[in-house]
């Protein structure tokens, strides 16, 4: 059995709003952006002046325009997760990181986050792009408890805006930066129990969503949107058929925060009411692997007893799910 002990998130302070994107003169206006993707703001680790001046044409130079390091973002998220778990960093025995936008090809992002937390632990990345969080939890859920330390920190740090060509309106409107962190244990129980996990991939679609080393984010938009709607719908439906694990309590659905239109389409197809769907894409954009777990973190204190159904999809193509309860196991 796998238990969640704490969850955290972090977003940089600098806001890219739709008026800023319109001011870049890339053929968008605020209404066009909101109507098309349902996003009004995103956060960035870059300075707005840097984006305006360079359009981020050379992603290898983006570190010079950064106002916060990815490692600091990961540490901030991890500290919230540790605080909620009532743990110290020294209680963590393993760090697993991974997402879409590692700052370095080597070392593992997990090594840098662990160093930032001042802990000497096993550190490795498990990466399945925007589906990384479910993938990491699924791997933990498949491992023998005795093979794991008591507490494992999973962290996703996304500096997506450093990979975006701000001359391309199709991608400029979508992405934001953020980090998420979660503390899991297979050995120490908590009131938050993972009920099931899944992970699958379709490697033939590896070229549908890419970020070449040193390059910009690219995707086949329509095909990827269709894949995202289809797979998220399938995963949500499968979890819903398992019933509301919270009984009379609340049941919520959290999807990959690709864009609001994708999420609305899934909810409409499945008849998921607004009050059962949690999202933050409108105010934070697509933060890659950090998106869905940051939604859970932002809503954590208000959730009460709940059954949580999370489905994430991403480049690879890859998809996965985590079904869990909050406050229901003593």
């Amino acid at each position: 059995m796998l238990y969640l002990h704490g969850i955290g998130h972090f977003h940089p302070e600098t806001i890219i709003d739709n008026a800023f994107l319109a001011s870049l003169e890339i053929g968008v206006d605020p209404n066009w952006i909101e109507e098309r993707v349902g996003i009004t703001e995103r956060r960035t680790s870059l300075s707005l002046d840097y984006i305006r001046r360079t359009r981020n044409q050379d992603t290898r130079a983006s570190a010079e325009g950064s106002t916060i390091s990815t490692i600091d973002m990961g540490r901030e998220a991890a500290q919230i997760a540790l605080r909620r778990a009532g743990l110290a960093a020294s209680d963590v025995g393993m760090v697993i990181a991974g997402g879409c936008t590692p700052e370095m090809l080597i070392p593992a992002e997990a090594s840098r986050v662990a160093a930032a937390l001042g802990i000497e632990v096993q550190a490795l990345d498990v990466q399945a792009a925007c589906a990384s969080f479910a993938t990491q939890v699924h791997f933990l859920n498949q491992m023998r408890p005795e093979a794991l330390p008591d507490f494992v920190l999973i962290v996703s740090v996304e500096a997506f805006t450093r990979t975006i060509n701000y001359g391309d309106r199709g991608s400029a409107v979508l992405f934001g930066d953020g980090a998420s962190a979660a503390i899991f244990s297979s050995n120490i129980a908590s009131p938050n129990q993972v009920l099931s996990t899944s992970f699958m991939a379709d490697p033939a679609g590896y070229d549908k969503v890419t970020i070449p080393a040193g390059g910009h984010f690219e995707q086949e938009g329509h095909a990827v949107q269709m894949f995202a709607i289809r797979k998220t719908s399938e995963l949500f439906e499968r979890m819903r058929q398992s019933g509301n694990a919270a009984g009379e309590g609340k049941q919520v659905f959290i999807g990959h925060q690709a864009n609001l239109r994708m999420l609305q389409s899934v909810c409409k197809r499945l008849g998921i009411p607004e009050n059962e769907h949690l999202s933050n894409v409108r105010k934070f954009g697509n933060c890659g692997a950090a998106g869905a777990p940051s939604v859970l973190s932002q809503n954590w204190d208000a959730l009460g007893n709940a059954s949580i159904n999370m489905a994430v999809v991403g480049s690879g193509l890859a998809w996965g799910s985590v079904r869990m309860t909050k406050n229901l196991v003593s």
Partner: protein
Amino acid sequence: MTRDDVRRSFIELLRPELKGVDLSSITDATSLLTDLNINSLRLVDIALEAEDRFGIRVDNEAVDRFFTVGGAVDMILERKLAAA
């Protein structure tokens, strides 16, 4: 189903998007994006709705064939024939 039947049914599927559009002005060359001003992400919803309405499977990569009314109708017919 004849091609005209599919075309009529497809335009019916589009009807919620066609406020203020003269239906008689729609031709096979009509672009859903530029002529009917349909949001490009909404195009994906339309392809998925077409799956349900016509009992076909639209490959993820085939959404681009929904750019025009004629392209969509031809693709739906192809899929229905292949499934027959």
